[in-house]
């Protein structure tokens, strides 16, 4: 890796964070009733960039909003006019502190669908205008399995700056992208030549204890292959019988990206929205006339599982699920995608 590492200590890190918050539009993990979300903050006191464990919400809404306006319009007897809502107003880079590796990787995985063929420049611009400071969790939460899914310590370029704590209160700030590098240079000044290797060694050392803390582990390439051969397996039905099709798993997932387009009109003026949707939704594929290619719940769950573990990889070369566990943590009926795909992979071949 050709980027620099800067060495500071806990105080130095606090000061840097404070300076960032005062200068930039900044987001960071905020705890509320035991749940963590990335929120806009105006002081370090409001947030916890060092939050030790997985977030409840992903960072996705800051790049792909839950609902965004496509346009406004007026339609009267005098005529129709469309008003584009214009580009985001971005004044200098936004910064997000304390982004978990899984959430950052989710963004990286989403780039593929946003830049094939038609380019979603809104998504890509938001990414380009955001500096991501990332800190790995101290240990795995009950539903996490990120280390099983192409987690590559040395080549994590989904982050702009990796924050690594070292021995004796030392903190390494490791630039992972040119954007991260430039940002650190502007805000910190002096880099440390030796720090780069030390930070990496420290990360590797800490990784062992971190990896050992995982309850869930899988060989996802094997699962991927077995799923491809079990499209018709009854295991989907068994594993997803309790699903209430509430879509929470999709709304909370860092990589789900299905959306719907809807109009809201009052009198002569209206707004068209792009907002989250989910393949678990029974209306998702219901056509006018009543035909529905995925009328049963297990079929929709099969689509969700196959998209996460087979189709996206077939199409774009990367696994769509990053193993963050957000979906399982928030599912009202305790369905875990880890369990579903493993159940299917372990099922007998014949149907």
């Amino acid at each position, binding site marked *: 890796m050709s980027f620099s590492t800067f060495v500071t200590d806990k105080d130095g890190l606090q000061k840097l964070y404070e300076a960032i918050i005062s200068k930039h539009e900044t987001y960071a993990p905020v705890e509320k009733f035991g749940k963590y979300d990335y929120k806009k903050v105006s002081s370090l006191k409001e947030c916890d960039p060092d939050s030790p464990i997985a977030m409840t919400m992903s960072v996705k809404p800051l790049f792909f909003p839950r609902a965004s306006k496509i346009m406004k319009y007026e339609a009267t007897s005098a005529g129709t006019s469309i008003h584009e809502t214009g580009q985001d107003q971005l004044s200098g880079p936004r910064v997000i502190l304390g982004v978990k590796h899984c959430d950052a990787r989710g963004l990286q995985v989403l780039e593929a669908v946003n830049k094939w*063929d038609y380019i979603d420049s809104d998504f890509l611009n938001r990414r380009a205008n955001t500096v991501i400071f990332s800190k790995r969790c101290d240990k795995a939460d009950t539903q996490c399995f990120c280390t099983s899914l192409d987690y590559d310590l040395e080549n994590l370029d989904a982050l702009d700056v990796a924050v690594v704590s070292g021995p004796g209160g030392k903190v390494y700030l490791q630039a992972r992208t040119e954007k991260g590098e430039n940002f650190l240079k502007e805000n910190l000044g002096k880099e440390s030549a030796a720090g780069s290797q030390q930070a990496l060694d420290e990360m590797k050392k800490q990784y062992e204890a971190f990896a050992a803390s995982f309850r869930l582990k899988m060989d996802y390439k094997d699962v991927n292959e077995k799923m491809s051969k079990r499209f018709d397996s009854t295991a989907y039905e068994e594993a997803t019988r309790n699903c209430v099709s509430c879509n929470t798993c999709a709304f909370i997932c860092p990589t789900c990206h299905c959306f719907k*387009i809807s109009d809201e009109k009052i009198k002569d003026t209206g707004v*068209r929205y*792009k907002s989250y949707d989910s393949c678990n939704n029974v209306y998702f*594929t219901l056509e006018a006339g009543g035909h529905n*290619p995925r009328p049963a719940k297990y079929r929709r769950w099969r689509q969700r599982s196959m998209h996460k573990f087979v189709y996206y990889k*077939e199409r774009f070369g990367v696994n769509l699920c990053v193993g963050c566990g957000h979906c399982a943590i928030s599912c009202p009926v305790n369905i875990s995608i880890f369990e579903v795909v493993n159940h299917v992979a372990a099922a007998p071949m014949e149907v």
Partner: protein
Amino acid sequence: MEALLVPSLAKIDRIIQETPDVRTYRLKFKDDSISEKFSWQPGQFVEFSLLGSGECTFCISSSATRKGYFDCSIKRAGVVTADIHTDLEEGDDVGIRGPYGNWFPLDDIKGKNLLFVGGGIGLAPLRSLIQYCIDNRGDYKDFTILYGARTSADLCYKEEIEEWKKNTSIKVVLTIDKPEETWKDNVGVVPKILEEVVKPEIANTKVITCGPPIMIKYTLQSLDRLGFAPKDVITTLEMKMQCGLGKCGRCNIGSTYICKDGPVFTYEQLKALPDEF
């Protein structure tokens, strides 16, 4: 924000009542510079909005070889299409995004006999290709159109069909499901007429078919029986869509984006997709 999804305004120039529940809307962009840039191939579709009601997917049912306008033929099917039929009048504005999707394989069908098999509103996408092929008639050999509907009233493009019939280089075969007093053409479902009346030549023929799912199902079986190779049978798929441009995930079947890789597929390609349509 979301610039990809903002439509351009088009004006309804004419509305043609095709059947009790199908109308053709003849459209022109309000901004001439958009009209000049807007070009499409037969088989492509647009996202059509009735502002305030919503957006729907419709193929362009006319050919770009007929200049100055484009047609969408719309069947009243659900919420938005009902509003379109009820609310829109000639002179009104609608929103259009597109054209999107792939198109009929124009190179593959050159020099071949063409057999069009359509049912009901399914003639809409075929009509775009039929017009295109008529306007380039020299590029093709035999030209047959088999078109059926439930009743004679449900046949679309009645005036145009009369013109096709007058064209001696085209064979037109019409059918309706049940006999009617004044009906002099064939009676019987499309696959039956295909096998018993049209009896198509198989060698060097490309079949292009579109219609309601049940008709497609039996037509494909008939074509199989007649001996057509799946690669010579071309159809267009109707999966629910939203964005039309490969982002929203709605139309996916396996790793295929129907809105980008389709909607036009050969029967051979369809057979390779998971059975989810």
